[in-house]
């Protein structure tokens, strides 16, 4: 489970989503403007903003702990 109390089982949806990441002026910086990673259970979340301003979220499952 994630450490965020709002993410605990039974917790109601709460908290406004964070504001979108500022759009980079240089499109070549696209890969470098991810937010600090968030988590939801075993998945890490990276927030991006596409060139046209739309939101893009990338979810990556963390490797199983040995």
């Amino acid at each position: 489970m994630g450490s965020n109390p709002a993410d605990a089982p039974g917790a109601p949806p709460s908290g406004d989503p964070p504001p979108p990441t500022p759009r980079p002026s240089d499109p070549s910086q696209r890969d470098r403007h991810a937010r600090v990673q968030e988590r939801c259970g075993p998945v890490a979340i990276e927030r991006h903003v596409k060139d046209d301003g739309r939101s893009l979220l990338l979810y990556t499952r963390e490797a199983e702990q040995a």
Partner: protein
Amino acid sequence: VSELRYEELRGEQVAYAIHRQERTFLPTREHCPLDPTRPGGEQTEIPFPAFEIAVFDNRFPAFEAPHGAAEVVVYTDNHDGSLGTLAPERAEALMWVWRHRYMELGAREDVEYVFIFENRGVEVGVTLHHPHGQIYGYPFLPPIPARELAADERLGGCAPCKLLGDELADGRRVLIETDAIVAYVPYAARWAYEAHVIMREHRASLLDCEPGELRALASVLQTLVRGYDALFERPFPYVMAVHQAPTGGSCGERASAAAALPPARGGHLHIEFYPPLRTAEKLKYLAGSEQGAGTFISDTLPEESAAALREAIASAN
């Protein structure tokens, strides 16, 4: 920008999103917008050379802020495959992605109902073959979840809990049983191979589920989809609809009039599959009775469908 018009005769909203006429329609594999962006290649919706699961605002939204949301959920960067062929760990991660989107979209004031769904196959109108689903954040409570809430009121408690109990007691239509999940063809199935996947415990939404329940849910969904594909030995088209509690102020505990049923909390997480095939080659169309009178006419008994599906599930898993 979409426009909502209220249809007084049926008492329901109709959404007009005329920009969707221009959306990408069955592109060739080389031009799939849901593939990753390969170095030197055409830019896609995901400007990265690889990814696991991606969610982005629909370029052609039916709903958008400040009047709702429309998102695309890409299950994998592999163009081929399906929900059923994802690695189990990826399918489990998808459950967490759904949970996160439910939590985040459900917290928005302009979203009354978070609806996660997948359309699979051209038979149900798919325009992109890459494995993906969608999420709509409706700015109102749509008619079907509203009817489910009305069923709770009518039965004096959680209707899905009662129906699950009835199905387990009967047993003839049960497809899959685990400690956490049950899948069955419902007693009054509309579609020949309709199936419902439901949490055994009363869970209003994905947010109420324990990690083990999410893992089990992913596993049962994959088992069912693989069974569907084995039934007629072809990719099985369907609409998959995730039903959860509304998020627009209806999630609170509601008193139950009958102690025999768990109190309704505005929903019970379950996932409904509506496959349009009634045989390997024939589609069920929504025609006069279904569209004009609202009554489904089915050619297949749910008990017979369930027996065939159980056999297909066993052969595929």
